[in-house]
């Protein structure tokens, strides 16, 4: 570094000498010394791969930063078309397939605790999300990896003997979310997932309790604050693939727009998945886009900061 500075100083001085005869070049004198001081910009971690911790169906690589609280309200209306939709339910607006209220608190900049409650199965979830790898601007690390683990309990009063034992109420999900911000406008993520659902809906003989799934989701920003989002997942479950007729399963797919207004992120979507929490929409999506069994939904994400004092940079 010293060598660089001294070299730069030499260069500057020699130019400065020139400057005495050529005033036009005088500007480059200080300039080159300045450049020598920070000519090698450090690689920065890539930020804001996604605007929110949720895209449509699943979680993103984003975590809630330290001492911040993210408050989530996620709503899915009823089927727009099909037997439950149409005019009699005002395109499903009279029904609610699922309502999710969530709180996510940042323990550190890379770790948050997630708590949420769904209307669907009255499931209460508690989870941890940890950003293990950050993408860097020099592409030394080309993608970000965030791990998510959640445990859920179906809390509803079961009067039909749905849950023979208490353990049957539990469902778990583990995800490794891998995302890359290709440009400031385009981000894509893959989400290998493991689901363990002790009593998956519907209650049918042979319904698989454990299976792998893969999610793929992306965002394309149209303006700085608005983007088109797509989220899709496929459960690798032979029971689900082979089920036909009334019990057929369909891969959850959501398409929507995302609007950021400062503290809030709004997502307005169409999705065939009725449920919001991972264990449920991966296990129990039996609505078919082709039959009009998709619904309007929205997500409101509001970030609160509890950092009172300014961070000191020096």
């Amino acid at each position, binding site marked *: 570094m010293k060598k660089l500075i001294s*070299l730069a*100083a030499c260069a500057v001085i020699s130019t400065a000498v020139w400057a005495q005869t050529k005033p036009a070049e005088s500007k480059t004198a*200080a300039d080159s*010394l300045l450049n020598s*001081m920070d000519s090698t910009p450090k690689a920065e971690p890539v930020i*804001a791969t996604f605007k929110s911790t949720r895209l449509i169906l699943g979680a993103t690589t984003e975590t809630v930063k330290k001492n911040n609280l993210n408050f989530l309200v996620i709503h899915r209306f009823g089927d727009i078309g099909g037997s439950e939709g149409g005019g009699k339910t005002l395109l499903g607006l009279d029904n609610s397939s699922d309502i999710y209220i969530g709180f996510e608190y940042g323990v550190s900049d890379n770790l948050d605790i997630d708590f949420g409650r769904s209307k669907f199965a009255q499931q209460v979830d508690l989870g941890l999300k940890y950003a293990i790898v950050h993408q860097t601007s020099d592409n030394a690390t080309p993608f970000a990896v965030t791990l998510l683990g959640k445990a859920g309990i179906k809390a509803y009063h079961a009067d039909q003997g749905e849950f023979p034992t208490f353990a049957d109420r539990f469902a778990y999900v583990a995800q490794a979310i891998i995302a890359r911000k290709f440009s400031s406008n385009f981000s894509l993520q893959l989400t290998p997932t493991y689901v363990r659902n002790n009593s998956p809906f519907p209650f049918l003989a042979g319904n698989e309790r454990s299976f792998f799934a893969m999610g793929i989701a992306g965002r394309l920003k149209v303006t700085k*604050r608005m983007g088109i989002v797509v989220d899709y997942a496929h459960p690798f479950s032979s029971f689900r693939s082979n089920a036909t007729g009334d019990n057929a399963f369909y891969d959850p797919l959501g398409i929507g727009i995302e609007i950021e207004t*400062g503290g809030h992120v709004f997502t307005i979507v169409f999705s065939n998945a009725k449920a919001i929490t991972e264990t449920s929409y991966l296990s129990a999506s039996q609505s078919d886009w082709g039959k009009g069994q998709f619904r309007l939904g929205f997500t409101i994400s509001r970030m609160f900061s509890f950092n009172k004092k300014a961070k000191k940079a*020096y």
Partner: protein
Amino acid sequence: MKYICIILLAWLSIKNQAGQDFYACKNAKISLFSSAPLEDIQASSGSGTSVYNPATGDLAFSVGIRSFQFPKSLMQEHFNENYMESDKYPKATFKGKIKEPVDITKNGSYPVNVTGELNVHGVTQTRTITGTVVVNNGTVSMTSEFMVKCADHKIDIPTLVFKKIAESIKMNVSATYTAVKSS
């Protein structure tokens, strides 16, 4: 590298006997503040770099946009992502010349006007910025306070954010220099 340096110095010693000192600062404190109806916005960076040549009056500053620290991390993210677009424009720079003569061999406080080019968000504006140079027993330091209008640098403030962002940002700069010996 060394040889180039030696050659340059040798050439210099023949051509010129001045042997001026340059002054450099690697930890200039640069902070921004704006008061808006809903909340104040403030951030600071302690890693600005600056070079000052007392002989010619040349003065240059550079600061990495990502080095600004905000109390609210979401605000910091929006600052980089939505307003400054720091992935495209990673630095803000100023290159100018001090108009008034400053005698760095004499202790004192010198009010100065610096005219030069301010580059923020990839847009260059010619500005005359007032500041103070303080010389105290060979230590040279500078302070300045000036306003930057977002519109001057094509920093969009969308109507959707409900007037959270002020149209002008107050900047404070302070730098303490160390001499970089030329010989």
